[in-house]
């Protein structure tokens, strides 16, 4: 293990333990780690965008002869006019372009790629072709989708049949929340396990290289 790798492991371990120290109580070491993380992330992101967008996708191709890229370049630069109250309106040109393109792309992709396939998958056969179990699950899906949609239908007071269906919808939503919560617990515990794995294997393992 090289000295650079050792230093890297110790820096990671220090910041892991510094952030865990918040579990006891707020303290200056935690604050230091938090601020360094925020600053580093912002700095890294700016550097990355500068390199991968401004240099690689704009500057270098323009120097290579793609002069039309000056148009998106100028439109990007116009965004900075937002810092001037007098000229901030100019940035709306770029914003309008971004909104138009984004809407166009997302309208098609979301409808074609998400909404329609998801709707199609709820329209299942309620017959027993695939067995009793599949039929039962298909019925659960149909009831779940309809009752949940009705719960979010606010144009009519939830009374009578509408009220009963909406209450069934609440049960489906609650079951969904329960599943989400269970998975969230697993996810958060996994993060802790990951850190403990690092501390136990890499950090404690590095002691043998030092001492």
């Amino acid at each position, binding site marked *: 293990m090289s000295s650079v790798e050792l230093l890297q492991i110790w820096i990671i371990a220090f910041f892991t333990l510094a952030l865990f120290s918040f579990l006891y109580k707020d303290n200056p070491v935690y604050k230091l780690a938090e601020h360094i993380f925020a600053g580093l992330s912002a700095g*890294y992101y700016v550097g990355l965008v500068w390199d991968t967008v401004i240099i690689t*996708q704009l500057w270098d191709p323009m120097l290579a002869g793609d002069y039309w890229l000056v148009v998106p370049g100028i439109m990007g630069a116009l965004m900075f006019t937002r810092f001037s109250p007098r000229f901030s309106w100019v940035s709306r040109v770029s914003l309008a372009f971004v909104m138009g393109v984004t809407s166009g792309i997302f309208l098609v992709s979301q409808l074609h790629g998400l909404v329609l396939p*998801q709707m199609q998958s709820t329209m299942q056969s309620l017959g027993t072709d695939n067995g009793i179990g599949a039929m039962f699950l298909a019925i659960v899906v149909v009831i779940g989708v309809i009752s949940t949609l009705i719960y979010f239908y606010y144009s009519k007071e939830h009374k009578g049949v509408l009220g009963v269906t909406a209450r069934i919808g609440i049960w489906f939503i609650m079951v*969904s929340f329960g599943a989400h919560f269970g998975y969230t*617990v697993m*996810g958060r*515990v*996994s*993060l802790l396990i990951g850190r403990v*794995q690092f501390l136990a294997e890499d950090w404690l393992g590095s002691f043998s290289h030092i001492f």
Partner: protein
Amino acid sequence: MSFWKTIEDIDRRWVYLMVGLAVIIPFIFPTEFPISITPETQMLYDAVEAVPDSSTVMVVFDYYPSTIAECQPMSVAALHHFFRKDCKVITLSNIPLGGPSMAETVTRRIAPLYDKEYGVDFVNLGYKYGYVAVLSGMGTSIESIFPTDNSGTPISKLPLMDSVRNYDQIAFIFEVADNATADYWVSIVNAQYGVPMCCGTTAVGAPKYYSFVQAGQFVGLLGGMKGAAEYEILLSKPANAVLGMGAQSLVHLLIIAMVILGNVGFFASRRNKRKVTP
């Protein structure tokens, strides 16, 4: 002070300590809990098995370093699986913070185990800003989006990329994500270009993607560390995820015990209050 009152007023730091110990102890005294294979993981495994040997696939590292514990075992297992099948692997990332370097580190660690050579058997395209444009653009030409690989080498100089122009030459996409980029792979790449794909995601994101499996948009799903552990078992390569599941199971048992204890305590103290103030 009654037992239930003590439980009710317990300092939450004791709970943190118990959770911490429940995670640490299985690493000192390895504990094994049974890991059953869910249908979604089995579907994913079968789908990857069905990919023709020696075909070109994509493994996408769309996760931040913060979720390494859950996502990295999935990527590692996927690379083992594809390299074992002699597939050509293209890696890329839509995550600026750590994605490209994790792809580089993990792939270069596993490739030598299968005598795979960079540029011939695997390529890391790295990161490019603007995932919507990136995912759409690769449908026309991968080279127009990634003129160079992660190290700055023109992809025209990489033999693997000679035969790969766009998604038409990609047999399968293995997306590992801890965020909503998986939605865009589905809505842009799967829906518009018809490339079969599966997803490995964090436990937090998994419930959302079950409906994608049901709709056939993902051919399989790995949900969190449990999904990763299942995949490792199916591959007969138990590693970090299987190791972590001991701690995971122990913490879950602890949390279940605390939830039961908390509820019993709540109802017991409410009954006591009713007795005192009729």
